[in-house]
């Protein structure tokens, strides 16, 4: 059991720097030897509104955020009524006395209200009221008994590029806040003492984990159009492009994005297209182009609720069946759905190996929750040593030199994979065509060749199926209820399963899909045949995984927990809906 488990939430308006403060706090928590799980909640606007950032802190690894809040830092009036119902008994609300807060708002419950002249002191110490965020984090550290020096080290790093004056101002603000918190700590029951003996750990969001994996896996080209929450992969690649030799092109639209990636991949460069569902919608014809030309590209879709603009900054797993069926015609594709930061990293490099080995498009289904949630990871959680670069049937210069017959780019083979050349060798001059073509690439409408080429492409599915991770079970075999989920629902569901089993040992287990296509039919049948009661848990309105399982196996779950209010699951939400 965790000795430390509490959530600190900072609430304000867009433009207040809530997200960077929250992410900075996660880093400080990590440097202090604890585990953080940080989650921003923000509106699709640049100024105003109500944004908040939650940092859950524990001495044990965290895989999910949770509902209860132990400490609320209110930078706007609106923050208090919005979150008071989430406060635990004995929790504290720290607010800026510069706010016009209705006195009635500061009464009742078993909550402590701590008013501090945050803006005024921030202005005095740092020359800007923006430093009240930092000051507030100092109060949080003081109240919970956390280590000020960890917070100070992050301030030094994060503000360094703004100059020593800004660093000093923020240090003064955080120091003042810390003292205010410490003076009041005796009456505050929740503690997050730093662990100076902990090994060094990492802290990152799912975007960074995936991007690092992709870079390690040889991604050298990224083209796309900004769309929340997919664009952070484009940003990450752009920030690292110069140093690591990655060309990043912000394109005129997503259609250009996918087609540029196909052009780069055709020339032998590992290419990715980061996007969200709306952008992927524009890429659909390009996906088919990659399919028929057998061009290895990776498409990363960080889902958000649709259709159309939907809820741009919120959560949903609504694109699975769309991505599975996108584009006219039939061709093989991979559909991968990492559920954790560790899986995102592995998917990042493995997607390129799968794309080149099978010469197919690889679709990676992330979502807003996975993309933006910040987690502390142990050093071993990202295994760079395990990274391999496998390029499949890629002809070497020597093999091309030795080629005696005319090169056949689309040669019929038992595996369906044809030896692939990169343009530039005199022995391998060919045309890749979006029309159906013969083995050399020439356009054909002959019946036999059409069938042969379709069969060739579809034969790849056999090899591809063997690459698919079977759904992973967590929890005891023979449990009363087996919960089924995919992608980022892993974290909240795993914690729900743990909590259910803590109450009633052996009653719950879960089955998590991190890869959806080719669908793991046999593993699914084996797992579900043994299950007693099966409950499908998804962040969408129609239960897309359940539909896929039914299509592929005929199996129908007994019950469903579906959430589609734009928010990700929490363990509490799942448990509350699991009773039936």
């Amino acid at each position, binding site marked *: 059991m965790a000795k430390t488990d509490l959530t600190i939430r900072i609430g304000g308006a867009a433009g207040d720097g809530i997200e960077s403060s929250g992410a900075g706090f996660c880093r400080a928590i990590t440097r202090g030897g604890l585990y953080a799980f940080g989650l921003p909640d923000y509106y699709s606007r640049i100024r105003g509104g109500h944004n908040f950032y939650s940092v859950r802190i524990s001495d044990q690894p965290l895989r999910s955020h949770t509902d209860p809040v132990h400490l609320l830092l209110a930078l706007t009036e609106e923050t208090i009524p919005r979150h008071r119902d989430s406060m635990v008994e004995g929790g504290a609300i720290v607010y800026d006395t510069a706010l016009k807060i209705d006195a009635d708002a500061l009464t009742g419950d078993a909550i402590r209200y701590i008013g501090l002249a945050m803006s005024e002191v921030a202005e005095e110490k740092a020359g800007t009221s923006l430093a009240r965020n930092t000051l507030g984090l100092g109060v949080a550290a003081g109240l919970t008994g956390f280590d000020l020096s960890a917070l100070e080290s992050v301030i030094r790093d994060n503000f360094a590029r703004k100059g020593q004056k800004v660093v000093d101002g923020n240090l003064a603000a955080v120091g003042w806040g810390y003292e205010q918190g410490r003076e009041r700590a005796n009456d505050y029951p929740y503690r997050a003492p730093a662990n100076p003996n902990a090994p060094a750990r990492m802290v990152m969001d799912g975007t960074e984990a995936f991007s690092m994996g992709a870079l390690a896996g040889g991604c050298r080209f990224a083209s796309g159009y900004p769309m929340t929450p997919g664009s952070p992969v484009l940003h990450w690649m752009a920030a690292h492009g110069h140093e690591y030799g990655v*060309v990043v092109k912000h394109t005129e639209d997503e259609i250009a994005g996918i087609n540029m990636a196909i052009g780069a991949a055709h020339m032998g460069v590992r290419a990715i297209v980061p996007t969200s569902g709306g952008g992927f919608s524009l890429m659909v014809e390009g996906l088919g182009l990659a399919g028929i030309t057998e061009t290895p590209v990776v498409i990363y879709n960080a889902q958000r609720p649709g259709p159309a603009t939907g809820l741009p900054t919120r959560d949903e797993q609504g694109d699975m069946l769309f991505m599975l069926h996108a584009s006219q015609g039939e061709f093989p594709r991979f559909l991968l759905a990492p559920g954790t930061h560790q899986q995102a990293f592995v998917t990042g490099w493995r997607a390129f190996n799968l794309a080149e080995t099978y010469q197919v498009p690889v679709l990676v289904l992330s979502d807003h929750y996975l993309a933006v949630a910040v987690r502390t990871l142990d050093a071993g959680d990202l295994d760079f040593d395990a990274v391999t*670069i496998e390029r499949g049937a890629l002809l070497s210069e020597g093999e091309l030199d030795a080629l005696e017959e005319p090169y056949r780019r689309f040669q019929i083979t038992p595996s369906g994979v044809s030896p692939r050349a990169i343009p530039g060798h005199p022995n391998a001059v060919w045309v890749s065509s979006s029309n159906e073509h013969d083995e050399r690439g020439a356009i054909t409408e002959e019946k036999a060749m059409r069938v042969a080429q379709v069969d060739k492409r579809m034969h790849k599915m056999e090899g591809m199926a063997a690459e698919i991770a079977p759904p992973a079970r967590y929890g005891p075999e023979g449990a009363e209820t087996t919960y089924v989920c995919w992608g980022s629902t892993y974290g909240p569901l795993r914690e729900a399963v743990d909590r259910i089993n803590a109450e009633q040992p052996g009653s719950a287990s879960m089955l998590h899909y991190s890869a959806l296509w080719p669908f793991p039919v046999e593993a699914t049948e084996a797992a579900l045949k043994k299950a007693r009661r099966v409950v499908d848990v998804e962040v969408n309105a129609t239960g897309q995984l359940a539909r896929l399982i039914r299509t592929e196996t005929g199996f129908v779950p007994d019950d469903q927990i579906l959430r589609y209010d734009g928010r990700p699951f929490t363990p509490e939400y799942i448990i509350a809906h699991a009773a039936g």
Partner: protein
Amino acid sequence: MVSRADFDSPERPTWCTGCGNYGILNAVKMALTELDIAPHEILICTGIGCGSKLPHYLKVNGFHGLHGRPLPVATGARLANHGFRVMAVHGDGDGYGMGLSHFAHAARRNIGLVDLVQNNRVYGLTKGQYSPTSTPGMRTPTSPEGAIDLPVPPLALAITMGATFVARAYPGELRHFVSVLVQALQHDGYALVDVLQPCVTFNRASAYDFYNERVYKLDETDHDASDRTAAWEKALEWDERIPIGVVYRVEGQPTYEQQVPALQDGPLAPRPLTRLSADQVAALRAEVM
């Protein structure tokens, strides 16, 4: 030495007798031969349309992609290997209709490729609908009472968008066409070659007779192709007299690929694809600690 026979393909064109595409095919072969560019040293990216089948009809590396999208494919290929010659070849429906935004953006990027547009001012492969460059009033299956839209002015648009080489060619003047194409291939940056392509099946009103009476060669006039204002006027000249040749050219502008920091060490594609070094892994880990 490269010879014209090096480009021979076993495929027989599906074009109508008298189609302007034969002249375009010949001009491409002749220009490549003149510049000693072998079939394996160039990638021709095409869209969809009669003319986009061109790479099948000569021996050359080709990528015959989607309607309207050859420029992004060509751009991606060029960014992946800027040591490699890249051409886009597509029709007016492809380049000035569906691909109009890619055209405008390719021009302003000054990406190093030749963009050859087979501008027959009609849709051929889908059988005779009016195109983005058709004459207003043209009666076609999708405009039975006459097209209403004004035609896209490709040369003026290219100049406006910052293109560094803008030319027009005519297959009825093959030697001249080849010389224009050679100059385009020699140009460092984005080069538009808009080709007045007669379509003898679906646009007889704008076929050889129409152009033969009107075209004149800019290099036989005192046109100064480095003068943007003069180029602008020539770009819009139509109806009575139609200029062919290099309308606008500015040299010495940096190409897109020359300005990409990640490409300072040379083209991407030939670099060995290796795992990250221990130092690189340590640096990435340090970023997130």
